[in-house]
């Protein structure tokens, strides 16, 4: 047997192939989960030490939660429309999702305004208020990246690049957007239970 003879049969069959970019997106989502896990754990640890101001969350958060759930629905609509190659509906649904995404961000901004009116500031009030700003703010930053992703998909739908044979980008967008919506619901429930 000669040892330097290399046995090559055919091109490697990939043992577990998932689309690498999609896979990377999931891994990215894991890092975001860890970031918020850290923040919410810090919140609980700090809360356990006392000197913690309790205040009502802005009711606007309920409205914003509705908006983000609705946007997930329209996102899903865009996705199924793309599967059926219904380009008109894709555009419409993507527009709706993007607008709802913006509306959510504006709503969050307004909610901060409500907090400020109640004399709850990022700096100088109780630490519980600071935490609220950090957690909602970090989520908003991620949501902005989601909106950018929505706009990218929207633009490519105008270039006829979103259809049933070309779903990767759409699928990634759907995953990310649902994740961001779910993340908000988790954070909101968390804040309701622990404020």
């Amino acid at each position: 047997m000669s040892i330097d003879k290399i046995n090559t049969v055919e091109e490697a069959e990939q043992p577990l192939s998932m689309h690498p970019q999609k896979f990377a997106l999931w891994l990215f989502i894991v890092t975001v989960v860890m970031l918020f896990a850290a923040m919410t754990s810090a919140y609980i640890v700090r809360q356990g030490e006392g000197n913690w101001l309790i205040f009502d969350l802005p009711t606007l958060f309920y409205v914003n939660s509705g908006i983000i759930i609705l946007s997930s629905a329209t996102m899903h609509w865009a996705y199924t429309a793309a599967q059926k190659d219904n380009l008109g509906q894709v555009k419409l649904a993507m527009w709706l999702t993007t607008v709802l995404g913006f509306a959510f961000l504006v709503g969050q901004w307004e909610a901060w305004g409500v907090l400020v009116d109640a004399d709850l500031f990022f700096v100088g009030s109780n630490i519980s208020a600071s935490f609220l700003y950090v957690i909602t703010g970090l989520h908003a930053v991620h949501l902005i990246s989601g909106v950018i992703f929505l706009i990218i998909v929207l633009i490519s739908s105008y270039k006829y690049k979103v259809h049933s044979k070309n779903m990767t980008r759409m699928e990634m967008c759907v995953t990310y957007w649902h994740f961001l919506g779910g993340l908000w619901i988790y954070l909101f429930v968390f804040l309701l239970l622990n404020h």
Partner: protein
Amino acid sequence: MSVAANVSAGAHAHDEHHEHKENFITKYIFSTDHKMIGKQFLLTGMLWALIGGFLSVIFRLQLGFPEMKLEWLRPLLGEWIQVDGSLDPEFYLALVTMHGTIMVFFVLTAGLSGTFSNFLIPLQIGARDMASGFMNMLSYWFFFLSSVIMLTSLFIETGPAAGGWVVYPPLSALPQAIQGSGLGMTLWLVAMVFFIVSSLLGGINYIATVINLRTKGMSFSRLPLTIWAFFLTAVIGLLSFPVLFAAALLLVFDRSFGTSFYLSDIYIQGEALPNMGGSPILYQHLFWFLGHPEVYIVLLPALGITSEIIATNSRKPIFGYKAMIISMLGITVLSFVVWAHHMFVSGLNPFLGSIFMFLTLIIAVPSAVKVFNYLTTLWKGNIIFTPAMLFSIGLVSFFISGGLTGIFLGNSAIDIQLHDTYFVVAHFHLVMGSASFFGLMAGVYHWFPKMFGKMMDAKLGYIHFWLTFVGVYMVFFPMHYIGIAGFPRRYYSWSNFEFANSFTDLNMFVSVAAILTFVAQFVFLFNFFWSMYRGKKAPLNPWRSNTLEWTTPLEPVHGNWPGEIPTVYRWPYDYSKPGAEEDFIPQTVPYSQTPESNLPHEQQFVDEEREDAADDVVVANEHKH
């Protein structure tokens, strides 16, 4: 068969086309080729190691010879050398901080994982490149940016960060506390944010590549232990670096926006600060949730490299392949539940302390399993003492001597005495610093032929090894005694303490040893660069090793294998198999070609291979129609 081959070649024609377009910039600078990116990480890491080592020489001078006049360093350090020729005490703290930061993150994380995960993952699993070459390139350049910022901070007027590599608030949060907590600390945080981004980009890529791009036949149970180690390292990084990011973010808010996440009830020069309600302990929890896993991010790749090198050079299968994997998995999981052993004396609830003590001591079990397996692999092997092998054995030695003191420290009662003394310094320098550094060196000596197509000089390698090995023990072993005697770490000078007088000689000895060990590294540097140009041309498989990287051409092109990617038929540790002609059987040799050495249960693989081959013929025929 040939048609199938053509089809697959077509699928990768894309890769070969790259060759035409390559120029200096795309080949050496903004490269997306994993091998070049690995080398970029290596060279940057080596540069950082020199800087970090040099900083330690300066502060060892201070500790060993507190009376020494350091005017001759003034051209370099300027005002940091005081008028009377002594080192500025605040700058001493800055030196220690930067030394720690550089060594832990820039050398042993980026320089080690960055180099070998990048270089070896595609080569050893049989992939053309990483899952995303672009992300990989970004990962290096974020690291580079981070490096530039951290380096800049060394030269600003107020000096770099000085609160220790753990940058605990309130010290690090209050610019008025020490000079280093001003601009230097800001730059530290900015640099670390880029560093985290770089690590995450790299880690995502490593995981995606190992899971998705293995060649045919390369199941998880046939992966080299190096790959297992890099994979788990990346998983740890992915889960822990975001937490460091959270800790750093809150620190940034405290420093620059006036929030009080970590600050409360602080008086500076009699004046009360407005910050109320924060908790510095919160920072410690967040930091050590990364900090402890970080020590395994640093160590696991070195352990993986060692497994590979020890098996190859003992000419024996690694002892307990599965046990190695299970213990690495165990370490991965446990590394996330022991962080509070760094906080035993922070006012932690003693009951909680005993839980963390228990969990900490459990880590000794998988660690001991690994040590046992290294030793049993060496036992009665036909050991070939290459420089890489010596460094690997050195690692095992440090892992034992440093790991044992971990068991002392893990006991919360003993830690009250030992915490923040030189005993801790000795412990983690042996088990983390030196062990991982030896893993890095072993890796360089072992894979240099694959990286540069040349052999390194073995004699110089032996000299380098013995000087460094003896040097490390001379530096760190005495530190245990110094620590037990009660010397606290991060002190500028002990000359004012009565008890310290009887240890003056020992401290001098340590400092001299440290300087000699540092100087010995230049033997390596010379060997490295000299061999790169003048070294002997390397044979294709210089260590007669089984893994896939040695089936590539001497200097693999972009895409690694010019033809098809080889298929894998067996695990990577078939060394000295009874009955075989040679004392190694590469992973690419099918069982059907080795009837003389197949074990009874392996006969079944021969049949499977036949079936696979039959399928291939069918596929090929279908293509012809």
